Structures are given as structure tokens and as C-alpha cells.
């Protein structure tokens, strides 16, 4: 198989991809040849075509998305466009959100799925799965239902599902975007190990991933090598402004002795938390996956289960959850009530169907909708996940602007960039909250 016996793993020549109903090509590649093993990082702006390229290589672009593909594409020795069925088992694609990647109930079933579907005897399928679970440190979680796993563990379960296939080419769509720092470090270690055995192509905006990549490519309607501004952008914050002033404005959010419990849990996810958010300030809740950041935001938004303590919020609130689609009730942003004067960084998305947007574009649209509401208290769950460095800078600037106009912005995040511009940071962990 090419890539293991010589020759390029990926070869594209004169490729053009068009989506039905979209004017002009979404991706054009004159020539691209990638040999393995190694790690290739794809970066570039939101909506630039990174996910399209991954889907093309995985053989699902024409099968699922009715895309028209011209040119020559060879992946692991087969044509994923002309014979998409043959690429199955050779290339494996890991989606951005592990919740949508995992289709079975437990890590063991997930890791054995490929072999079960391809006719291996159950003990062989389970044996292969078991080895991968061991490698990823998931042995003790083999029977846990996926809905009970933390984001980090779920990402590893999703990774187990594709690694157990032993693919020639591993395709990853922003594999770190939903992970906190410790989980990211573990996944990076796994990727470094795997890149010694096979070619890995990962779409990412994360400098930790680009810094360990053997090759970095920019995907922006075409594929090219990065220029210096991009490299700087990835490793900086693109002219990100400094931290917001701290301590000056009116207290718009005051929380005292907040406890949040979930039914059946032996102890509260947050116990006795106290914090405040002031007008003119960006406040960040900082902590690992599952520490209770989202529970606090939900409580402040007026929801949440079994909430105790004193919560005071002055003025109108708006809340954008981690799944940005949940704020929409129409198929396009421009049909949405309240979408009247979107910020410049989101105006190009106004009439784009939501279900055709990339993850980063969806988040931009959701944030734009929330910021048009004129709310004084803005509650955001992971607002920078999936954003390219430029859009991240635009969003952070917009948050500073609305804070400057008297709003209090309170964001749950594990993004160091957002933390760096916060006027106040609360760490969340082990059920506690403290200013840090």
C-alpha cells in the first residue's frame, strides 16, 4: 500500500471541488503530494476548505455532500472519488466534535465497530479493540457509557474507533478544540507516537499541534505553504488587545454560595461558589473539562438543576451555549428574529444556511446573534472554540467593545488567549471556585 511501501500516500492534481448551490469552487488544488509517515497540519481561515479537503480524502465528499469533484485524487493507492467504497479502511476520519464521532454506546464497542462491520469474528474484533484501548489508557473505561465520559475521555474513545482500523491515513478535524490542557497534552503525545507509523493530516488552529507537525499547509480555497504572517498569527494573538480593566464597573453578576447538583450525583459539581462580573470587564471561568464551568453559566442564565445559593443578575442576559446551533430557530441567520445589524466579521454569513457552515462559522454566527441583542450580561460557553486566529481576534475585540459600552462578559473557557485578555479570572476545579 502506498505510504508504507513507498510513493505518496496522498496525491492531488488539478482538483476542483464545487458544492451544489454555492457559487464558485470551494477548493482548488493544482498539485499536492504527501508522503508518510508523519504529521501534516492544515491551517487557514474558517470556511477556507480544511474540512472539505479532509472529507475529500476520506471518500465521503461525493457520497454524502453531493459535491462535484474534478481532477485526479489518489489516497493510499485508490481513488476516493471514483471508488469511494475502496477507501474505507484505508483512510479514517475523526470529526471535530467527539459527540458526533462516537456512534456506539461504549469505548469497547466503538473500538471494535470497524472489525465487526467488516466480518471479523467477535473475539478478533474485541481483541483488536482491546489493544487500542490499552494504548490510549481506556482499559478501565471499556464498559462506561459514552454519555458518562468527560470530553477528554470521549475524544480518546473516538480516537480508538479510528486507530483500531490501523489506517494508512489518519484524518483529524481540529482534534484539540474541545479539550482542556491536560487532555490536549495526552492527545498530542498519542499523535506524536502515531505519526511515526502512518501519515496523519490534522486540520487545526492550535499552535501546539502545528509546532509538532512535520509539515504545515494553509488551506484557503487552495492549498499552499504558510507565509510569515500566518506563522506569527498561529503563535500570537494577531494584535490582540491587552486585558480589560479590572474592578472599575458596576457589579452586574453577583454569586454567593452557589451549589449546583445533578440528579443521582453523589456530590455537587460546584459547591459554595462565589464570584462576580462587572460592567466593562471580561471575566473568564477557567478550568478543565467537567469542572463545572458550564453549570455556573447555566445557573446564571436562569437554568440548571438543583441550584442553591444567591445569584443576582442585573439587566438583560444573553447566553450562547457550547453547541452554537442551539441559539437558532431558523435555517439561516438572516431569517432569525434579532438579526438586524450583524458585526462586519459575521455579515458574510447572514444568508448562508446554518447546516452548510463550518464549526467556526457557526460559532461566529451564534456570537453575532447574541451580541446584537443589546444584553448587559453576556454569558458565553467556550466562545473561541474552532475559530481561526483572525476571527478569534475579531471576536475578542468585539467582546471588549461591548464590555466598553457597559456590558459584563462572562465566558467559560480553556483558551489561554481569552484568559490573557480577561480583567478577572476565576479558576474552577474540584467543586470549588477561586479568583486566580
Amino acid at each position: 500500500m502506498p505510504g508504507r511501501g513507498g510513493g505518496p500516500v496522498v496525491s492531488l492534481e488539478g482538483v476542483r471541488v464545487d458544492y451544489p448551490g454555492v457559487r464558485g469552487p470551494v477548493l482548488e488544488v493544482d498539485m499536492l503530494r504527501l508522503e508518510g509517515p508523519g504529521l501534516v497540519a492544515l491551517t487557514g481561515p474558517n470556511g477556507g476548505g480544511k474540512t472539505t479537503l479532509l472529507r475529500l480524502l476520506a471518500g465521503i465528499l461525493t457520497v454524502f455532500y453531493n459535491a462535484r469533484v474534478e481532477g485526479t485524487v489518489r489516497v493510499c493507492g485508490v481513488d476516493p472519488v471514483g471508488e469511494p467504497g475502496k477507501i474505507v479502511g484505508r483512510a479514517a476520519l475523526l470529526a471535530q466534535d467527539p459527540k458526533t464521532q462516537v456512534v456506539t454506546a461504549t469505548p469497547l464497542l466503538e473500538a471494535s465497530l470497524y472489525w465487526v462491520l467488516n466480518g471479523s469474528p467477535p473475539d478478533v474484533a474485541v481483541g483488536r479493540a482491546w489493544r487500542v484501548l490499552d494504548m490510549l489508557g481506556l482499559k478501565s473505561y471499556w464498559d462506561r457509557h459514552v454519555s458518562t465520559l468527560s470530553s477528554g475521555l470521549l475524544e480518546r474513545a473516538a480516537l480508538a474507533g479510528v486507530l483500531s482500523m490501523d489506517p494508512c491515513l489518519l484524518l483529524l478535524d481540529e482534534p484539540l478544540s474541545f479539550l482542556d490542557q491536560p487532555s490536549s497534552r495526552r492527545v498530542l503525545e498519542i499523535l506524536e507516537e502515531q505519526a511515526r507509523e502512518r501519515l496523519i493530516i490534522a486540520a487545526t488552529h492550535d499552535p501546539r499541534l502545528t509546532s509538532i507537525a512535520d509539515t504545515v499547509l494553509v488551506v484557503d480555497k487552495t492549498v499552499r505553504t504558510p507565509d510569515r504572517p500566518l506563522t506569527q498569527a498561529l503563535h500570537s494573538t494577531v494584535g490582540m488587545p491587552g486585558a480589560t480593566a479590572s474592578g472599575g464597573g458596576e457589579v452586574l453578576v453577583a454569586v454567593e454560595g452557589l451549589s449546583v447538583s445533578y440528579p443521582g450525583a453523589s456530590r455537587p459539581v460546584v459547591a459554595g461558589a462565589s464570584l462576580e462580573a462587572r460592567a466593562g470587564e471580561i471575566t473568564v471561568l477557567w478550568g478543565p473539562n467537567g469542572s463545572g464551568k458550564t453549570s455556573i453559566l447555566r445557573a446564571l442564565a436562569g437554568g440548571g438543576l438543583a441550584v442553591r445559593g444567591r445569584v443576582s443578575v442585573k439587566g438583560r442576559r444573553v447566553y450562547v451555549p457550547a453547541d452554537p446551533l442551539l441559539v437558532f430557530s431558523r435555517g439561516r441567520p438572516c431569517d432569525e428574529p434579532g438579526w438586524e445589524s450583524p458585526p462586519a466579521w459575521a455579515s458574510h454569513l447572514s444568508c448562508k444556511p446554518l447546516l452548510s457552515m463550518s464549526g467556526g462559522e457557526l460559532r461566529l454566527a451564534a456570537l453575532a446573534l447574541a451580541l446584537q441583542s443589546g444584553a448587559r450580561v453576556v454569558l458565553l460557553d467556550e466562545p473561541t472554540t474552532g475559530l481561526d486566529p483572525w476571527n478569534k481576534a475579531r471576536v475578542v475585540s468585539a467582546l471588549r467593545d461591548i464590555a466598553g459600552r457597559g456590558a459584563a462578559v462572562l465566558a467559560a473557557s480553556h483558551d489561554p488567549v481569552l484568559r490573557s485578555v480577561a480583567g478577572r479570572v476565576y479558576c474552577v476545579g474540584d467543586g470549588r471556585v477561586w479568583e486566580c
Partner: protein
Amino acid sequence: MGVLDWFLSNAEAALTGEQGGLSVASPEALALSLAAYWVVIGVAGLRGLLLGLPYVAALLALRGLKGSGPILWAVGLSTLTVAVLVALVNPYRPLTGAWLYYLGTVTLRVFEYSLSGLLVLVGLGPHGAQRITARLGRRVHDPLLVFYRSTPQLLADTGEALLAQGLLGKGAHEAVTGVTLESLRRIEYMRASFYVRGGELPGRRTPLPPGLVSGGEPGFRGAAVSIVLVVLSLLPLAQLL
């Protein structure tokens, strides 16, 4: 000792929940599920009703193993009803064994999201929905707890949509659309995830409810179809209860 032997040796602990609340991965369930895949793959090309028979066979075997009573039949028949209805309206032919797995997953999602929509529409809200599903869940046999276990994500989504859209001045029916949009996106990714690992999904993508993609009225048509499927699937259950 083989892995399956190892499974069986842990059966008691697994079925009594001593390993942290085991659901579908109990040894019998795993073995029977795998057997079901084999049976259906063996009759690849047959369509319609045959699709659900191995599932019922597995449920029957489980009933014999655990003696869990008519509730298991009811859930099995409900699942079968939804699976057949989805099979009849889906654009993918021929249906193969891989479809069983896919349909089980997607049916589950449709079931969950539609049930949530239904409960929200009748004014019950996520808290009431959780109480109901918990009561149902306790009565459903261990392997079928997957239906109950995956409900928290749906409820969380519904709660998030109600919160976020309520603060934007919108109502419960609009939150249902938000949840439906999210479910469609998840299903799309899950289909791709299934396909790249050998699941057979030839043909084109499932047509989406027009209102969801092109704007205009929110996707009540899609939600209505889902709710009809769920109501039909619940009929056998209602008879028994």
C-alpha cells in the same frame, strides 16, 4: 483465556452494576448484538421487515436470559416499528446488515429528539421529561438502558436551547427547532463516522426538511414526521402499560 471468556467471567458483576453501571456492554448483550449483526449481514439484500427480525430475536433471547417480562417486548416492537418506518422512507437501497446498526443509532436519536420536542410542546419541560424517562428507564432491561442512558445529552440540549432562546425572547417551539438543527448536524457527522468504518450507506444524503435549510418557517415538518414516528412506535408500549 479469551476475551469473550473474560467477559462471561465478569457477567455477574456487570449485570448487577458493580462495574459502574454497565449497560449494553454486558457479556450476553454484546454477544447477542454481534450475533445479530452476523445474521443480518448474512441476509444482506433483504429489506423491510427482515431488518428488524434479528433485533427481535436478540431481544427474545435476552428475555429468556433475564425474564424481564413484557416491557422488553414493548420496547422491541417500538424499535422495530420505528426501524421499519425509517427504512421505508429512507433513500438508501439496498439495506444491508450495517443498516441495522445505523438505524438503531439514528432511530435512537430521532426518538430522543422527537420525544423531547413532544414533551416541550405539551409544556412539560426538561425537568418533567427527565422524571418520565428515569421512570421508564428503571423499568427497561439492562441492555436497553442505552435508550435511557443517551437521553441526558438530549435533555441537556433541550435545556440549553430553552435557556438560550428564552433569553433571546423566543419560545419553546423555537427551541425545538434549535434542538432539531443540532440533531441533524450530529446525525450527519454520525453517518459519516459510520460510513468511514465500513458501514454501508450508498447513495445520496438524506433530504433535510426544507424549512431547516432554506429559511422561512422553522422545521416543523421535520419535527412533525419525527413525532409521528415516535407516537406510532409507542403504541405497543401504551397497550401493555
